[in-house]
């Protein structure tokens, strides 16, 4: 089966350019360098139609940047994104424009992602009106439909965002994304800001919508139990690189990469009581100055001298499973 979304060696570098003073200092012989962050480093990802792919990592690992490139909010520095076989890496191209409607994003903070001065009917209805998706319905009818789909009362369309609770606002965010009839949703920490009971409601909503509308999801989160619950396949990122990719079942049953193992060990679980935490040593290194070789080697209990110098490639270790670790190579 062919992929709906395909990224090839997708990379993003953020460069802090030198200001006038720094340039002058360099002219005069000072050792001033531009600061470069390799936020996303050559990520290959295939997502099939109807799949839910979880993208997991700690803060600063580049998972949100990746999501933003897929959605067309950030231009990639290198590599390509194909959607339905068409190159959409350039958001300004006609293909990019078409895909921009089909790929929508749901953001983490339901308080920051809705314009506080717009009414619900405009937040949800503006985009479909401009793109001519109303198909004879009035904007109010269309918005009422959308609100019903996400489990909100249609009579709310005259309200402002501040009149809603966190969970309701996140539903509004979902309705806004759905209003342009997307096929693919990028959910960036979409339930992280919600209370547990509300989080369950929104996760259920995502699963219902997926069935009703035949949606495909890229689900970005740091919360492993949420990702485990909703995804078919999981990718683990560490400092810009994908270190492991596997079907959810396999990933949680038998993690391969030492980082994945450490991460899964640390997740608090309801059924583990009075446990001894045996944490991974060290901090997440600064992405400004990442370790050489395998990024995880300073914290890895199995690191060898090879890990200090060479970058491990993501290689198949079983059907549908990939891991970037030298330990998998037979000596």
């Amino acid at each position, binding site marked *: 089966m062919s992929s709906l979304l395909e990224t090839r060696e997708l990379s993003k570098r953020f460069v802090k350019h030198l200001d006038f003073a720094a340039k002058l200092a360099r002219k005069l012989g000072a050792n001033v360098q531009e600061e470069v962050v390799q936020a996303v480093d050559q990520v290959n990802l295939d997502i099939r139609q109807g799949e839910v792919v979880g993208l997991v990592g700690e803060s600063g690992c580049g998972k949100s940047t990746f999501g933003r490139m897929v959605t067309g909010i950030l231009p990639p520095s290198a590599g390509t994104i194909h959607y339905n076989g068409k190159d959409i890496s350039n958001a300004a191209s006609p293909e990019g424009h078409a895909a921009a409607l089909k790929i929508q994003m749901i953001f983490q903070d339901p308080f920051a992602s809705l314009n506080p001065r717009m009414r619900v009917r405009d937040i949800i209805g503006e985009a479909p009106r401009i793109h001519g998706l109303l198909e004879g319905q009035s904007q109010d009818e269309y918005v009422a439909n959308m609100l019903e789909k996400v489990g909100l009362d249609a009579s709310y369309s005259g309200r402002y965002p501040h009149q809603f609770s966190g969970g309701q606002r996140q539903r509004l965010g979902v309705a806004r994304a759905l209003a342009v009839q997307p096929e693919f949703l990028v959910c960036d920490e979409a339930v992280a800001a919600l209370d547990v009971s509300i989080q369950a409601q929104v996760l259920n909503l995502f699963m219902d919508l997926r069935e009703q509308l035949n949606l495909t999801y890229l689900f970005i989160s740091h919360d492993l139990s949420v990702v485990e619950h909703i995804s078919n396949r999981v990718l683990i990122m560490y400092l810009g690189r994908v270190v492991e990719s596997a079907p959810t079942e396999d990933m949680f049953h038998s993690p391969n990469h030492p980082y994945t193992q450490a991460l899964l060990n640390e997740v608090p679980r309801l059924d583990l009581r*009075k446990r001894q935490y045996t944490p*991974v040593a060290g*901090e997440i290194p600064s992405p400004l100055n990442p370790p050489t070789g395998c990024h995880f080697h300073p914290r890895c209990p199995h690191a060898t001298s090879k890990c200090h110098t060479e970058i491990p490639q993501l290689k198949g270790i079983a059907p549908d499973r990939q891991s970037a670790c030298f330990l998998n190579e037979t000596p």
Partner: protein
Amino acid sequence: MPQPTLDVRNLQTHFFTRDGVAKAVEDVSFSLGSGEVLGLVGESGSGKTVTGFSILGLVDPPGEVVGGEILFKGRNLLKLSEEEMRNVRGNHLAMVFQDPMMTLNPVLRIDTQMIEAIQAHQKVGTDVARERARDALGKVGIASPDERLRAYPHQFSGGMRQRVAIAIALLNQPELIIADEPTTALDVTIQGQILHEVQRLCRETGTALIWITHDLAVVAGLAERICVMYAGRIVETGSVDEVLDRPLHPYSKGLIESVPSHNQRGRRLNQIPGMTPSLLSLPEGCAFRTRCPIADVECRRLPSLHEAETERRIFCHHPQRETA
């Protein structure tokens, strides 16, 4: 039975706002002994943080502790003058906040802040205080504490800052630490490190700990006993195993079932309908009534917190006994 370190009885903290009285904490009672870890669990607005603030006497107007007793080693903290309370706070009682930048002053070096905290309570020389500050940093797992003492808060990462905040709470060897969501803002591996240190410290020093959180899974791994709060009241208390495996209150039951866990992957989560009611307009009777699957007419009458089983108290007319 030995005297408990902390005994909170019928605590009431109300906020007198323009729109009416918000009963943020209503009739809350619990106690804990030395070395014990109590998990205080609830969703936003359930009153768990205000409970912590009330114990430390940090409730600001329009909030006010209007009733109850907070007995700390037999002494009622609510009867103390502000001067006496200052002596207790930071010396015998300490708090760790969710955001370590709330504890740390960004323009002062770590050593200045730590030495100040020691000298506020004890007459010791700066050299002795510095030594104790260094030891405290070492205890929470900060490498090369001598150099780190001279750093400013912005030179630390989030996890390190939280360690410093915990070190400051530990400085005067308090008998009780109240930790308010201290790992919520941290990454999983860093959270694991902090939990590890906290567990070790409680075991070694016999400090009692109240761990305030919305994350049931963290409490499961850390605490001995648990209090579940909803809309300002404790709705269920008991040992962690009992409450998590056999919740009696429909709210705790719903809450536990709405946490994604590995044995129900891909299935619909059991969700609690509706949302947390505003504290200004709580339903009459049981506050959970409007979201409760088993509510009936009787629930219009306020239930009482009663002992349903040994060491288990529950605030409900209809405890869920047959849950299998």
